[in-house]
């Protein structure tokens, strides 16, 4: 039986170029035909040179994770071969440049092809090597070359000569495979041709922000958040907005706070180091009750850490960071599709509850692409900030103490109810008042809003449950690990284990009711996360009084379904021992 769900990994030195683009082109062509794709990539931190790799899982069915290891390994050079051969699965295929790579012939199906030599001698077009490889990939694994040809045509629309040379390289690669005796079982077949979208997490966050009416963005470049800044710089002016490349992250968040105070929905995006710099201003936004959305695309820390690798290491900082007692909402999107929904939720919650909302994404989610279903925004509730209606300027209370803690916010230039947005503790009008009684009343007011947030997030949509009920093992995860957990749960259930998973999108406040129900229904709880300290497990222990088992990975790479599945077996095997 041919296998139509497999992982292709491509590795090589970025100095030669084309590692990522070859993979991306193949992915887009497959996605356009209706295949589901899920990519993963790492870049070297160096500017030029250094090893990069890209992988795509392609399937005829929905895929939720990057998969396990790889089935097809394409190595541009010896280093790539050495680095990745251990990840090649049994029955896997090795494709390599036979003049540049000397493999050990240890049981894989091998196609050694002198790519560079062919490009140089037969095509007189060394730069066409990547496209030649694309042609070979299409021929070997059943991707109709027409879809790739269309992409080449689009890409070189305005450069006829280059277009012809690339098309020739593509066809040459495709024809070349006819002389190869195919020994493997990987074959894509035909897909459903249903139009889907192919986006990265950062793309989906940006789209969600624009859809939510975000018309001001400020950021300071940092991997892996820079492309949000770059996209906003292009897009915002088209819709009447402004994008600012700030002089640092403090300026970025400060200006976002200013923009929101002036009535515009506003966002900033950064990664750990920038997020650290923003901390004092997060407290200001919470004290002044100003809606802001902060994206933290986490990367490995501390300090500069591993800038191009993922880690879920900023949860403590997001939930607990900063001086003083202040409420903030922390959301964690679980997939590319979910990035859109969570961003829309972030803006809604920020506006309604007038406080900072942090979106904790991570490097893998920022830059991986997924084919996702068309976005349907029907049924998303509209959430707006409360404005002063009718109060005379004299009677207006910006920080009115009331049952729900939500008080009306006037907008400069629009509303006659002027006020001063304070960083000092203040009375209902916003005037500095440093008495114990006022501080207590105002602190409680600010935190009352956080309690109300639970109504929106303690729901099936934002704390979905998956798998068996009751279960022998329940897995609670957060952020980008959702897909690997889900696939691991599927595998475990196929083997007869009773396993379930819950993946809350809101980490502060927690969806307490649903989490407690879930925990009740499982004999034991496991929390896998990509950090050393078990930050979410710790948070859950503090908030819910439960001590889950922990599973921590700190290498800068995401969990694979196989790793989680192995852990499930280990835990449940122990349980029966």
């Amino acid at each position: 039986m041919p296998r139509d769900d497999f992982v292709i990994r491509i590795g090589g030195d970025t100095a030669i170029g084309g590692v990522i683009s070859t993979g991306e082109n193949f992915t887009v062509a497959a996605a356009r035909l209706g295949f589901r794709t899920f990519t993963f990539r790492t870049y070297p931190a160096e500017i030029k040179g250094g090893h990069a790799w890209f992988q795509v899982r392609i399937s005829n069915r929905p895929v939720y994770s990057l998969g396990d290891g790889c089935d097809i390994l394409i190595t541009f050079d010896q280093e790539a071969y050495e680095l990745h051969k251990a990840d090649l699965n049994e029955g896997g295929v090795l494709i390599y440049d036979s003049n540049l790579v000397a493999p050990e012939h240890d049981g894989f199906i091998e196609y050694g092809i002198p790519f560079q030599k062919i490009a140089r001698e037969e095509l007189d077009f060394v730069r066409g090597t990547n496209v030649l490889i694309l042609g070979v990939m299409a021929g070997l694994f059943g991707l109709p070359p027409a879809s790739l040809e269309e992409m080449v045509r689009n890409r070189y629309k305005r450069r006829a000569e280059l277009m012809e040379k690339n098309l020739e390289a593509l066809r040459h690669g495709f024809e070349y495979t006819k002389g190869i005796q195919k020994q493997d079982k990987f074959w894509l077949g035909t897909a459903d041709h249903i139009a889907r979208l192919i986006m990265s997490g950062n793309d989906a966050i940006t789209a969600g922000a624009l859809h939510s009416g975000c018309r001001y963005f400020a950021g300071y470049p940092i991997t892996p958040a820079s492309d949000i800044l770059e996209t906003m710089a292009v897009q915002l002016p088209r819709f009447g907005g402004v994008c600012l490349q700030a002089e640092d992250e403090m300026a970025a968040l400060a200006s976002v706070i200013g923009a929101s105070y002036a009535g515009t929905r506003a966002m900033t995006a950064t990664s750990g180091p920038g997020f650290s710099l923003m901390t004092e201003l997060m407290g200001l936004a919470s004290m002044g009750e100003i809606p802001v959305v902060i994206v933290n695309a986490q990367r490995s820390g501390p300090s500069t850490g591993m800038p191009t690798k993922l880690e879920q290491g900023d949860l403590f900082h997001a939930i607990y960071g900063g001086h003083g007692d202040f409420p903030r909402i922390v959301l964690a999107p679980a997939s590319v599709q979910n990035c859109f929904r969570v961003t829309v939720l972030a803006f809604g919650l920020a506006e309604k509850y007038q406080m900072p909302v942090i979106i904790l994404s991570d490097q893998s989610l920022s830059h991986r692409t997924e084919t996702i279903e068309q976005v349907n925004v029907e049924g998303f509730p509209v959430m707006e900030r409360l404005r002063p209606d009718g109060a005379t300027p004299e009677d207006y209370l910006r920080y009115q103490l009331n049952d729900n803690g939500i008080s009306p916010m006037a907008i400069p230039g629009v509303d006659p109810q002027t006020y001063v947005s304070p960083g000092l503790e203040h009375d209902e009008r916003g005037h500095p008042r440093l008495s114990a009684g006022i501080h207590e009343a105002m602190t409680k007011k600010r935190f009352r809003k956080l309690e109300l947030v639970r109504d929106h997030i303690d729901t099936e949509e934002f704390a979905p449950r998956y798998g068996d009920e009751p279960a022998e093992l329940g897995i609670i995860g957060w952020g980008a690990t959702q897909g690997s957990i889900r696939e691991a749960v599927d595998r475990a259930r196929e083997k007869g284990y009773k396993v379930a998973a819950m993946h809350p999108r809101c980490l502060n406040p927690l969806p307490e009711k649903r989490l407690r129900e879930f925990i009740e229904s499982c004999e034991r709880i496991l929390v896998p996360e990509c950090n050393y300290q078990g930050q979410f497990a710790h948070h859950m222990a503090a908030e819910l009084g439960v001590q889950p088992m922990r599973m921590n990975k700190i290498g800068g790479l995401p969990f694979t379904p196989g790793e989680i599945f192995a852990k499930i077996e280990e835990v449940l095997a122990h349980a029966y021992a």
Partner: protein
Amino acid sequence: MPTRDGAQAAATAEIETLTIKDYKSGDKPVWCPGCGDFGVLSATYKALAQLQLPKKDVVVVSGIGCSSRTPYFMSTYGFHGVHGRSLPIATGIKLTNPDLTVLVMGGDGDLMAIGAGHFPHAAARNIDVTCVMMDNQTYGLTKAQASPTSFIGHKSKSTPYGVITKPMRPVMFALTSGATFVARGYSAKPNDLTQLLQQGIEHKGFSFIHVQSPCAEFFNTYDYYDEHITNLPEGWNTQNLEKAMALATTEEKVHLGVFYEEDRPVFERTAHEFEAQINEFVLDDYLKRFA
């Protein structure tokens, strides 16, 4: 003096004229007796009244410090931020609502130390705000430490052996950073200061007004300034950057008046004009690029 808003006010007639009193919040300033900041505050009330700016269209943004308390004494909109970040907060306000009149007010610590990283950028961008620095050459709120503008040799609680750092020159800093209106005033000359504030507010672009505003409590420099101040020379050409820099760095005298003026496009206006046509955001259209 008719301004855009003044003219509008006149046109819609009957709108009552705003007086100095109208710009007061009613909260009493927390400053010590003799503080220069009283003079700056009253000059600010006067300038706003002379320009007849509607209260709802004015935002006074500050950082932290004695001087940064100013917004609380105003009846306009205000923003009391965190130490050093007044300029970026003001930048966000102006970028999203260019029609507002935005004043940034704060101390030498706020703008020249902790917030100094923002100052040259706001000036270089030419954001249309009026930045009023109330320079008392000390840290007032934290009680008498040295500041970036303290004189060499100044003995303070944090510099018991005397300051050994060359003082920053705010006017020079503004000029080299690209500020398009640079002036200096003295809190003890509130009428001249009112005039400078008015000009600064009317100027389209980044206006910097360096105000010598002595701290009577911790570093009383009234005698020094009464002796050292002098007006810029008669007939001073405000278009000459080189000469402005020369006078900004002299040490014999402290010149008052408008050092420099320049007409340069304002960041927030240009940034709103990148696209000739502004469209409504339509999600389905936007997502086509990902199909």
